[in-house]
């Protein structure tokens, strides 16, 4: 995972190569300047605090500054269990975020409901919003979280970025 060497490609003169260069440059810029919205609910929040702190530093990945307003954030990290009462709030925050945005399900409760399979919890936030990276663990070790962030960065790099189009998955996919 960590062995991809990251190099900004050289400038060419052909149009489609120029467009792909733009996409790669935008991807490079976006992946190294993630502004997270830590939607912290439960125990995983403790591991989130550890990941953001001095030992397992999230700042090295460019994702240091949490932005507590959805308008200013582009990475929604759902940390901890989301229950049925919290679900509308999560959805609202997701809708308030501007494109491009990514979602990380941090912890197994956010990925699939964890072992709380009962009347109160949502079985995974992907039942409410589309998720890009799932980081399982209860709570995940900080190294696992960093691995998840690097996976997300690779995904951001590989996406097609343009300055005008929205490329995110639709919130409610049309029924087939």
């Amino acid at each position, binding site marked *: 995972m960590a062995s991809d060497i990251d190099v900004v490609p050289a400038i060419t003169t052909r149009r489609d190569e120029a467009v792909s260069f733009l996409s790669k440059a935008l991807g490079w810029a976006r992946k190294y300047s993630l502004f997270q919205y830590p939607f912290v*609910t439960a125990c995983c929040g403790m591991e989130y605090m550890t990941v953001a702190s001095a030992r397992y530093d999230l700042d090295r990945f460019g994702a240091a500054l949490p932005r507590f307003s959805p308008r200013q954030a582009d990475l929604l990290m759902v940390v901890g269990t989301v229950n049925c009462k919290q679900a509308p709030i999560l959805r609202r925050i997701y809708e308030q975020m501007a494109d491009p945005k990514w979602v990380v399900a941090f912890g197994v409760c956010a990925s699939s409901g964890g072992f709380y399979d009962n009347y109160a919890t949502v079985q995974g936030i992907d039942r409410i919003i589309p998720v890009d990276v799932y980081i399982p663990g209860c709570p995940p070790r900080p190294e696992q979280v960093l691995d998840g962030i690097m996976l997300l960065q690779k995904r951001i790099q590989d996406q097609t970025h343009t300055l005008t189009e929205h490329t995110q998955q639709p919130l409610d996919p049309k029924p087939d």
Partner: protein
Amino acid sequence: MATDAKETGVLDPPALPGGAPAGGGELDAPIPTRQMLINLGPSHPATHGVTRIVVELAGETIESMKLDIGFLHRGFEKSCENVTWTQCFPYTDRLNYVSSIMNNVGFALAVEKLCKLDVPDRAKYLRVITSELHRICDHLTLVGAMGMELGAMTVLLYAIEARDVLWDRLTEICGARLTSNYARVGGVARDVPEGWIEKTLGALDRTTAIVDEIDGLLTRNRIFVDRTRHTGKVSREDALELGFTGPCLRASGEAYDLRKAAPYLVYDRLDFDIPVGSNGDNFDRYLMRIEEMRQSDRIVRQCLQQMEPGEIAVADFRYVLPPKPLVYGTIEGVMAHFKLVMEGIKVPAGEAYSYTEAANGELGFYVVSDGGGKPYKLGLRAPGWPMTAALPHMLRGSLLSDLIPTFDSINMIGGEVEQ
């Protein structure tokens, strides 16, 4: 009037709108304000766990406050009613997730009270050692978060570093940093690895150094003291009536600590002090935590000295899994293992309320058993619950900016308050 001005040398101020009396200076004039209803929503950086606070403000003063909780209700009690007694331990871990071993130990003590089991000495010492280490972690998290939310970001980084150092030791003994799942009915899950005791003493030295540094950064810090002293005051009678226990009660002046009042495990063999505050404000609650960390350090060092080699669990196949050589070698071992795993421990029918001194206060488990392998009812008395419920009483008439240190210092942990 020109003649008056010449005589007195002072112009009378004009009458103010709203009919306020002119005179007495413009600085005393009332500013017309409006009541505002503000929502500190469930997703907020300064709320620990998710709580929705609806605050009615007049200017900056809180007239009244309403708390809306339940955004982290995960159905702990109902989940526990559907799994075996031993399978409840991971659920109890995630109640007070910063000091999870204390929840495990509290639950194990409740079940052992019903089963009338007495665990071996070494298990008691191990439970006390790991509980006190987690108590230090809980207080570190609180002090760090309190500093961060009042602007002192460095304190958070130091506190998390100290917590990481302790979590490394706990990982070696339990397997997990945070949600330890360490206690079992009848003892503890596993014994200490090689060299753990020396490493823990080193970790405690490092933690004490960091606690001293945090103390030096915050306790005489002008900004910190100004924001926490005389804010969120609770009198002793109010604290008792509202149900406070633990450091918040002791900060208000009532010297009630379950480790001294109703000693359990090995606390009666240990020598430690109980810090008691006098004002019942946020600063006292913060100081409680710093002092309690130092006392916990004393307790752990004494325990490490006093602990003798021995069994870590009761050698009773009805409650504790038999050791693997017996499981693979004897019929009784295999049968006991099978019954314990498939059906669960058969706890005699009855009910019991067992209480321990967790980091935040009295952690109580009310267990009702119907004689089977699953709990009939597992009621949790969360230590943070009365303090959270009392927030509207504590903050009536305070400034809005006093809400944040008060909310920090009561240490509301979402997992336990919302079960």
